[in-house]
């Protein structure tokens, strides 16, 4: 009987020992390690530990093992990781974690010295690097193929084919063409694509003597658009027909711009409207007013939220990548067409990878998903 009671008591003691030790003042964390945060600019050191308990811990740091430690941050024991972003590059630091347990302050063993270093590559972006190199390589390959004189097929894009017809209509009716290059600045690639189509349209209006107006919301785009139209008239041999007020700046406010342009449409009743570029909520206001004014409308945008509005109100709509293909399609320059083929090749590769990923997921393998994860 005595032996049984003693055994039970011993087992109980062994089970309670960790908790008793904790109550007497051992830290809720153990195994503290510190290392230079990988793939960063040398401004951070990462701490990692095992959680033995719960509760808050203070992150203490010093530049010498036995020196004075300062508090640099707080964490929970359960977090198991902490990033110290207040370090200087190249300076060696020592770390310890402090917690208050049973009224006593308990420190882990000190770890260090560890110094933060600037890294030359973000490892988490290896996949993006490969994709970027592949994209550049595809452009290079197809441009080289195009330069060798091989004919490259690009399918018909109805909206681009209709540009000549639309300009012709305005010429016959003796009415104006409105060209709206979107509301974003030159930093938006859609705007640059729009300016390349503006060049083509301006060449036509110069040749046919059609009136064109290009109202702008962004001052940078206004400057670029004016140069584009001026150059188009010069190249067409009609520099005297170019007028400064063909290209105007209206206002930076989105809806004031929409109000101004729609007012012009109602007053001047253009024969043709081009709305090509990046648009937001004003897209339907512009397109519906143009429709009511009786204009033939060609729109183009890569903003998926505005595409439905253009599709329902315009005669032709360039969807997403069709807008970016415009300059190549209209000029038929082999080098530009080569880059369109590169884009198509990249899409084919991506579709193949996605199809493979879907099949592998059906077999519980997420290797493609992990491969495509970006950070």
């Amino acid at each position, binding site marked *: 009987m005595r032996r049984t009671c003693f055994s039970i008591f011993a087992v109980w003691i062994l089970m309670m020992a960790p908790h008793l030790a904790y109550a007497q003042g051992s830290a809720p964390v153990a195994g503290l390690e510190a290392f230079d945060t990988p793939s960063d600019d040398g401004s951070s050191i990462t701490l990692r530990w095992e959680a033995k308990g719960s509760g808050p811990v203070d992150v203490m740091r010093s530049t010498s093992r036995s020196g004075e430690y300062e508090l640099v941050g707080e964490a929970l024991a359960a977090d198991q990781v902490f990033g110290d972003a207040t370090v200087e590059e190249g300076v060696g630091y020592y770390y310890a974690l402090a917690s208050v347990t049973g009224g006593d302050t308990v420190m882990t063993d000190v770890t260090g010295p560890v110094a933060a270093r600037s890294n030359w590559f973000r490892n988490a972006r290896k996949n993006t690097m490969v994709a970027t190199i592949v994209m550049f390589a595809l452009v290079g390959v197809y441009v080289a193929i195009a330069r060798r004189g091989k004919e490259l097929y690009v399918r018909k894009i109805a909206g681009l084919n209709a540009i000549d017809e639309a300009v012709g209509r305005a010429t016959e009716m003796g009415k104006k063409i409105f060209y709206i290059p979107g509301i974003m600045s030159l930093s938006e690639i859609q705007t640059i694509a729009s300016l390349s189509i503006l060049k083509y349209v301006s060449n036509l209006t110069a040749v046919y003597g059609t009136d064109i107006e290009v109202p702008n919301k962004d001052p940078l785009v206004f400057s*670029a658009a004016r140069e584009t139209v001026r150059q188009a008239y010069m190249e067409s041999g009609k520099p005297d027909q170019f007028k400064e007020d063909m290209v105007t700046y209206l206002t930076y406010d989105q809806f004031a711009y929409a109000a101004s342009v729609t007012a012009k449409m109602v007053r001047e009743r253009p024969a043709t409207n081009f709305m090509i570029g990046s648009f937001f909520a004003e897209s339907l*206001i512009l397109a519906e007013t143009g429709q009511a004014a009786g204009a033939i409308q060609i729109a183009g945008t890569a903003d998926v939220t505005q595409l439905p509005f253009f599709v329902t109100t315009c005669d032709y709509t360039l969807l997403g990548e069709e807008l970016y293909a415009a300059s190549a399609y209209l000029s038929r320059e082999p080098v530009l067409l080569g880059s369109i083929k590169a884009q198509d090749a990249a899409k084919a590769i991506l579709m193949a990878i996605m199809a493979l990923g879907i099949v592998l997921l059906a077999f519980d393998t997420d290797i493609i998903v992990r491969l495509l994860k970006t950070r």
Partner: protein
Amino acid sequence: MRRTIPLVLTFLVGMYPIFAFFVPHATVSGVNQWLDKALVIVAAFALPLGVVNLVGMNLEKIKQRRAGWPYAIVLLAGLAVMAYFGVIGVIKGDTGFHPTFEVLFESMVSPLQATMFSLLAFYVASAAYRAFRARNVEATILLVAAIIVMMGRIPFGDMLTGGRMTPLSEWIMNKPNAAAQRGIIIGAALGAASMSIRVILGIERTYLGKSRD
């Protein structure tokens, strides 16, 4: 030279952020941050260009008494008043906003913007009436999906169908709609990448106002 310098600048300024995306080193990210700030400064300096053009054009309109010239006076007066109180507010005010600027913003700019945005409700109605006709199979599918989503977004849909409309509408948004949106986003992103590479490498030059030769 006139043609070469912009192309070289475009290449350098275009390639650098791509390089900085992969290289976190402090010296590289420092230059990248400077480039970001430079873009903001250039855009800010472009604004006076536009304002000068706007003022010049409207003054010309008033001088020549062209059609609508009284509205040009209204435009210039509005520009002057808002600019004056805006600048005074920054220079003198505690909060950076002059009280008159705030009153003008709250009572004129804000309601006008809200009104223009509200026009969409009317235009959506007229566009939907005109465009949503069951001309063929695809148009019919579009029509049915639009009605389901419209009914699913309002309480009437659930009231009429015993709570079935919202889940059906959510299914359309989460499955076919999300899939189609992703397809267009991926295609547009590849198109943007291809166009950007053309611009960076100097293959695409129309934005400079010059054709390739």
